[in-house]
């Protein structure tokens, strides 16, 4: 017989209670994993969507806390192209709009001369021709979800658009995006002559001092704009920050729930087994050994609940990301470190949950425990 035999038998002695406790931990851990993986996934998708153009700087309206509400004059694009050290500058207008089948999607407008139109890989169809009206290119995943092909019509912001192409992107947000010539979106959104942001590629991106000098010149040329390295933009995004904060706050509640559940179960289990603890003490088990026994029982509950909870959390995150209402903006980012952190946290919480009751039980006089039992 191993030391672990006794706590294992104790857990199987009351199967209904054990299952319910494990279920509570599964819910807590599952919520934790799902929320954190979705929050990380959103931050990552936002970053990669901006990085896909392989630009070094992004200009947004100074003082705006969120990129979608940023507004810069389109004329600024031409001014910035003339700044020394700038290889290219392209404006883009972004908006979240309702589409068919309950989808909410990112609708982006690119100017006709934007080289990104040519750089895209088109799964079907082509880029819009200059002067074409009411046409869009859909991201590959969006086209698949809506079952649309070039020649079909799609309703965006309650207006019909003819699909001319389906493009492949490297991340979830862009693959769920609709693209149209800049002028069309400006008219649709009543934002003529404005863009949300300007993507900037620099001539000497690999030289830090050159990048710094160019950034300084850009700031002087456009004091109304804020210039941020593309890689830092996701960290500064308010929605990303809020989602992260909500995820952590909810996770803290979930962890607290887990602690209470394990503590409650162990308190009941210990109270029920006063006699058993008295017997163990009477036959010479030390308080430390009895403490270890009860803690191990809590850890076993935590380990089982943690493993199932991690798996359930990953499954839930992927299920949530597949919902039409999410519109492909949330692609879970499940990493080994995230799962390991959550698992270690729940193991610690399970140990802490049973600690006080276990300590009390281990200190009781055996005669008292046997009398009460």
């Amino acid at each position, binding site marked *: *017989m191993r*030391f672990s*035999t*006794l706590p294992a*038998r*104790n857990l*199987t*002695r009351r199967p209904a209670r054990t299952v319910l406790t494990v279920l509570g931990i599964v819910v807590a851990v599952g919520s934790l994993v799902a929320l954190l993986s979705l929050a990380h996934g959103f931050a990552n998708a936002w970053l990669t969507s901006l990085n896909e153009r392989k630009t070094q700087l992004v200009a947004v309206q100074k003082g705006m806390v969120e990129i979608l509400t940023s507004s810069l004059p389109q004329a600024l694009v031409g001014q910035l192209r003339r700044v020394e050290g700038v290889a290219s500058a392209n404006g883009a207008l972004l908006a979240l709009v309702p589409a068919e089948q309950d989808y909410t999607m990112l609708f982006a407008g690119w100017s006709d001369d934007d080289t990104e139109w040519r750089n895209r890989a088109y799964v079907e169809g082509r880029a819009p021709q200059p002067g074409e009206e009411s046409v869009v290119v859909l991201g590959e995943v969006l086209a698949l979800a809506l079952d649309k092909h070039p020649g079909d019509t799609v309703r965006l912001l309650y207006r019909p658009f003819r699909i001319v192409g389906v493009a492949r992107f490297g991340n979830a947000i862009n693959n769920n995006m609709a693209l149209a010539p800049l002028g069309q979106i400006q008219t649709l959104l009543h934002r003529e002559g404005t863009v949300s942001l300007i993507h900037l590629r620099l001539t000497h991106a690999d030289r830090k001092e050159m990048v710094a000098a160019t950034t300084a010149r850009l700031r002087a040329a456009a004091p109304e704009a804020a210039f941020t390295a593309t890689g830092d933009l996701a960290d500064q995004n308010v929605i990303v920050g809020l989602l992260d904060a909500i995820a952590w706050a909810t996770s803290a509640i979930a962890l607290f729930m887990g602690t209470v559940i394990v503590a409650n179960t162990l308190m009941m289990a210990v109270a029920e087994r006063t*006699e*058993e603890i*008295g*017997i*163990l*003490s*009477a*036959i*010479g*088990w*030390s*308080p430390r*050994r009895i403490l270890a026994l009860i803690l191990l029982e809590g850890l076993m509950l935590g380990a089982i609940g943690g493993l199932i909870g991690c798996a359930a959390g990953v499954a839930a995150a992927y299920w949530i990301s597949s919902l039409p209402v999410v519109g492909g903006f949330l692609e879970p980012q499940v990493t080994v470190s995230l799962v390991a952190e959550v698992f270690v946290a729940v193991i610690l919480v399970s140990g802490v949950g049973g600690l006080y009751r276990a300590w009390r039980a281990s200190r009781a*006089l*055996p*005669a*008292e425990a*046997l009398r009460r039992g």
Partner: protein
Amino acid sequence: MTDLIRVEQVSRRFGDGRVEALRGVSLSIAAAEKIAITGPSGSGKSTLLRIMAGLDRPDQGRVLFEGREIYGGNGLAALRARRIGMVFQSFHLLATLTAVENVELPMLGVERDAAARVRRVKVLLDQVGLTERARHRPALLSGGECQRVAIARAMANRPALLLADEPTGNLDSETARSIVDLMLAVAGETGAALVMVTHDATVASRMARLVRILDGRLQEAAAGEAAAGEPRPGR
């Protein structure tokens, strides 16, 4: 003979001090001695046994085991594990464990070699005649069989002192006789002292020495007379 255990002027009160279970009790027991403690219900005999076993702390007085005060330091658990075996009236076996696992339980923190533990358990179960019932849980064993398991468990670490609190209290007379035989045999085989609390005059008469306890005070009695005529407890 050298004292194995000596109880000196031990007093114990319960219920906020209103009930005085033991009043300045002193008792010395030599190695390998066989002694019965008798007395009416509530006289304090089980309290005395528990204090001797290191399970309950006296309010006054002291208990010396092999010359060392047992309630003075931190070694009480180790003493209970290695030097004292305890058998209870209601067996106190763990319901989730089989007979073989119950017997092995006291050895978990004492004997690190699992194979040695298994060998020892096999010998003990053979000794108490339960080899065939080794894989049964207490719920599937009779009262006599449970008490045999409890005796094997008490002897697992070869204690110097075997304490039994009404070990035949829940058994019929035939089974009671066999249990007493068994306890005398196992204690005799290892040279352990045996202290048995009992109401049963027949059981008490099997011991070499009898002490009687009345209203928390101890009286030495001649063998065969101390337990005679005492009523059985109502529990």
